[in-house]
């Protein structure tokens, strides 16, 4: 366990350095400069150059890189050009909606997926069970941006239950803030829930093939008990890993969704940062997302170990 942790931490550092370095040079290769965005559409090249110089973005790239990486190592990600605030502060300020959406969607998806998949597994001939595979395939095939727009079209405008865009600070106005996040979370869940149901159903079906069930029946254990006490716990194991991996999907999906719903989370901030060529912000955010993703997967792995005695106990 400790070894695993150390190995994973080492991986984390490697991934961070790789991601940071790659991103640093990648975004600098992109044409366009922060000054262009700062100055608006009618600025002349002279003005842009002048501002670039004023922002100290004109030195040799490699020196800038070393400057940035040494600062980053001490936790100083620089100052955002567009926000004129420390990047760390920007990241923290915009973390709430993204993380809340991801976590809420994951928790609710798991909570819903278990009964849905179990229902199908317990009654394989029911209409629900027969429809499950097309329904989950449908959920997995829905592009989130499209679903979001459809929801906006039908719910936001025609029925007017939920606000169609915008964001109210969750921390200061939880109820109102939640109302704004309902649609985005529903969209995120559509994919995730389908993914979890599919995974869970497949692993339940896989478990049903296992011979220990036959043993259980031979022992005279009731089918229900078998399902809940044997099959389900075992079948949940693979879901842990899938949930960890799907977190990445969520962060990616958040970019698209935050744009559609104008939610000032990491996704929108990153997109705006890219548009504005806010180098420090782009770097800081991608790094943060990568770190978060790796950490979530690490937690998923650890959970898996705790949950699976085959790995935990040797």
């Amino acid at each position: 366990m400790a070894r695993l942790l150390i190995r994973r931490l080492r991986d984390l550092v490697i991934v961070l350095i790789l991601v940071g370095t790659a991103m640093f040079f990648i975004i600098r290769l992109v044409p366009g400069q922060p000054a262009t965005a700062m100055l608006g559409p009618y600025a002349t090249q002279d003005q842009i150059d002048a501002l670039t110089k004023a922002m100290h973005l004109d030195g040799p790239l490699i020196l800038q890189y070393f400057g940035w990486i040494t600062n980053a190592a001490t936790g100083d990600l620089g100052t955002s050009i567009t926000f004129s605030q420390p990047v760390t502060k920007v990241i923290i300020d915009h973390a709430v909606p993204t993380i809340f959406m991801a976590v809420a969607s994951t928790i609710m998806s798991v909570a819903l997926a278990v009964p849905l998949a179990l229902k199908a597994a317990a009654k394989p001939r029911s209409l629900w069970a027969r429809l499950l595979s097309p329904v989950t395939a449908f959920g997995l095939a829905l592009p989130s941006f499209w679903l979001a727009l459809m929801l906006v079209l039908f719910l936001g405008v025609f029925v007017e239950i939920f606000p169609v865009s915008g964001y109210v600070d969750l921390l200061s106005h939880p109820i109102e803030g939640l109302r704004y996040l309902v649609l985005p979370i529903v969209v995120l869940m559509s994919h995730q829930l389908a993914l979890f149901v599919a995974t869970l159903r497949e692993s339940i079906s896989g478990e049903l093939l296992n011979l220990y069930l036959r043993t259980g029946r031979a022992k005279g254990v009731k089918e229900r008990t078998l399902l809940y006490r044997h099959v389900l716990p075992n079948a949940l194991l693979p879901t842990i890993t899938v949930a960890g991996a799907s977190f990445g999907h969520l962060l990616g999906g958040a970019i698209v969704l935050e744009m559609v719903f104008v939610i000032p989370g990491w996704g929108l901030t990153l997109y705006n940062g890219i548009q504005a060529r806010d180098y420090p912000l782009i770097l800081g955010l991608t790094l943060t997302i990568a770190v978060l993703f790796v950490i979530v997967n690490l937690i998923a792995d650890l959970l898996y170990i705790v949950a699976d005695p085959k790995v935990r106990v040797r």
Partner: protein
Amino acid sequence: TGGSANDAPSSPVQGGAVVAALSGDPQTLDMAQNTGSLTIRVAINIFEQLFVIDKNYQPAPMLASGYEKSADGLTYTIKLRSDVKFHNGDRMTAGDVIASLKRWQLVSAVGKSVAKDVASIASTDPQAVTITLHQPRYSFIDDLAATTQPAIIVPAAVAEEAGTSPIADDKIIGTGPYKLKEYKHGQSVVLVRFDGYSSRDDTSSGLAGAKKAYIDTIEFRFVPDPAQQLNGLKSGQFQWAQSVNADEYEALKNSPNLKARVADSGLVATILINHSADSSFSDLKARQALNMAIDKKAMAQASFGPKEFWSPLSGALVFSVDKPMYSQAGKDIYETFDPKKAKKLFEAAGVTANKPIRLVTTQTYPKYYQMAVVLQSQLEKLGLKTDMQVYDFPTMISKISTDSSNWDISFSAYNGTVTSPSQVLPLAPNRPGEFHSGDLDTLKAKYQISKDPAEAKKIVDQIQQLVWEELPVISVAPNKVFDVYSTSLKDVSTFTQSIFWNCYLAA
């Protein structure tokens, strides 16, 4: 039209909050430096200038109480109002004005062009500023009243600290009726009424005259998607939206809750042409062919929606309301649409199907993109090949301004209400496309020594004629702004978008 429209006879009420949908994050509220409309829409309520334009596009004093011009036209003494307070509570003095103007000369394109002629800026007393010029400048006061990268007045400390960088968010201190409360990047800007504001007494007209802030707070939310802006308006989430799709006009005209109005001003949609030797369009014949190949009406229709948004089509570089600058010279050239002749001319200029015409555009501003699509289709109808490159906006700008070898035609739109020819950006030096014309420079210089409006107007006509003869750019159509707001918002100015003073929320 113009001035504040009294579309409701009820009497104004103080109070209330407006949520306004803005198409994006302005990045900075420093309107002296930033050229974008997002910045202007917000900052226009915060900052003020010495002079501003009234509804007839004539300069009128705002922070100045008046000015004197020496007989030789070289010395301007500008008197300042004494009752003006900054949002930080400090009184505005000559020192602030001098620092602000000096910075303006550094960061603004108009400021820079003015700077060439300025010998000194000094103050004789705290309520007056004296500016000495090297040579007469007919447009000097007009330039001070310019609306793009305007000469806003900020506290001296702020101006000096910012220098050539944009003013930081916590230093956004102006003299306007609203002050910045909170700027959440990527999300919203919140303005609140500045209680220390002392209004002028003269009647309000355009940007000039009395300003009364009725509304308590204005929250600009950044909503890039026009459809979302409209949805928000419909659902009552927003009271005002910056850019609703023009195609909604018909439907909205009859809406009981929303007021849809085509403003008188806006942007002039322009086709940029690469004049460098790398492009076949450095040949005048090719440009003429291009002009004849473009069905401007179709392009306007496809890009800007219903007729109301783009008529009249005259080829002018400014809107018709901007009387001093508006000219119909060269209209006949503008109106020539002759694909056959165009094809011949293209052939003569060596533009054939073997050599694709490189169109560079962006989807960041959908209209530029839509113009490109229409142009592409029209060129292809002539049997020409096109190579359309779509970038995000910063990339496009950097492509067309730094690398002349990779493009032929690009698209842009410029402020259609300017106060002097030097503010007509497509004709300004250092614009993408590397256009140089001695004649144009001479005309511009002549304008500055003109003595009276009639003489000036003549030169404006000559410039306009030259534009259609030499085709530095092709002005396609004026594109009027679409104002959509809740009917609860009363007395909204039609002069330009997002003037939030003098209007109020019905109780």
